[in-house]
């Protein structure tokens, strides 16, 4: 292939978007054509220099460093449980719920406990009539 056909493909070659036949043709051409090889190397350098922009100012960096230090000093708590805290917390919660249910059961089934589901005015007095509200 001629230089005129190869040159437009150099960017695609750099970004690996060429189909296999076109890629092989470019590779073969670059091996034998110094001018196109130089052009490709310039394109490659230009692509790889994309990140060579300016840095933020030193003052900005210092400000950010102070903010990071502040954040690390405990500005905010961790957003979630650690791996070992999670089962511990779940176990503790389950134990509390079980204890509470057990206590409730003991109170509601003890001697003199009122039958469940009856309101005060429905509980009959020992004489058979309704207890006064």
């Amino acid at each position, binding site marked *: 292939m001629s230089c005129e056909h190869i040159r437009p493909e150099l960017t695609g070659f750099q970004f690996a*978007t060429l189909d296999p036949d076109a890629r092989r043709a470019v590779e073969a051409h670059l091996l034998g054509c110094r001018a196109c090889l130089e052009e490709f190397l310039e394109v490659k350098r230009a692509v790889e220099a994309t*990140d060579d922009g300016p840095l933020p100012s030193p003052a900005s960096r210092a400000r950010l460093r102070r903010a990071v230090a502040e*954040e690390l000093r405990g500005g905010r708590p961790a957003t979630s449980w650690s791996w070992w805290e999670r089962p511990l917390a779940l176990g503790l919660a389950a134990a509390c719920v079980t204890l509470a249910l057990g206590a409730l059961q003991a109170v509601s089934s003890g001697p003199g406990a009122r039958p469940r589901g009856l309101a005060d005015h429905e509980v009959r007095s020992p004489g058979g009539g309704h207890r006064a509200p």
Partner: protein
Amino acid sequence: MLSDEALRERLLRGDLDAFDRLYDRHARALFAFIRRHLADAHEAEDVLHETFLVMLRERDAGRAAVSLRAWLYQVARNQCLNRLRSRRRGARALEAAAPEAPTVALPDAALLAREAAERLRLAVARLPTGLAEVYTLRASGMSYEELAQVLAVPIGTVKSRIHEMVSRLREEMKS
């Protein structure tokens, strides 16, 4: 050399030297990426700050990411888009920053090669923002998987955008 993820863990344990190393490693490219969206340098610095602080505040999200680098770009990108949306204006920093047309090159191989690089730079400057960010991310060496994470799109979409970006550059460089 310590990985980004190892440095992040050190930082989260309070090691400010780890912050310095992460900053040295990523700040320049990340800042350039942010400037693709936000023309204002001070605003871009604010986004860069917030991006690093989010790393400290959303620890689990950062740890769950495929790569810290891609996650930082993702955070920065979301913040840029939020700012742009809230102001209802498009980011066309690249177009504004387009350098002047190159002078006519002499027919010398080295000069022709440099002219090609200059044509590429001009073509990149004319890319729409969406394709320009694909160019920047890919040029910085990100994998398709990392790009998919940053852009929040499937890998197939990443591939098609890269092809579109290269086609646009090809056409621009011919004209």
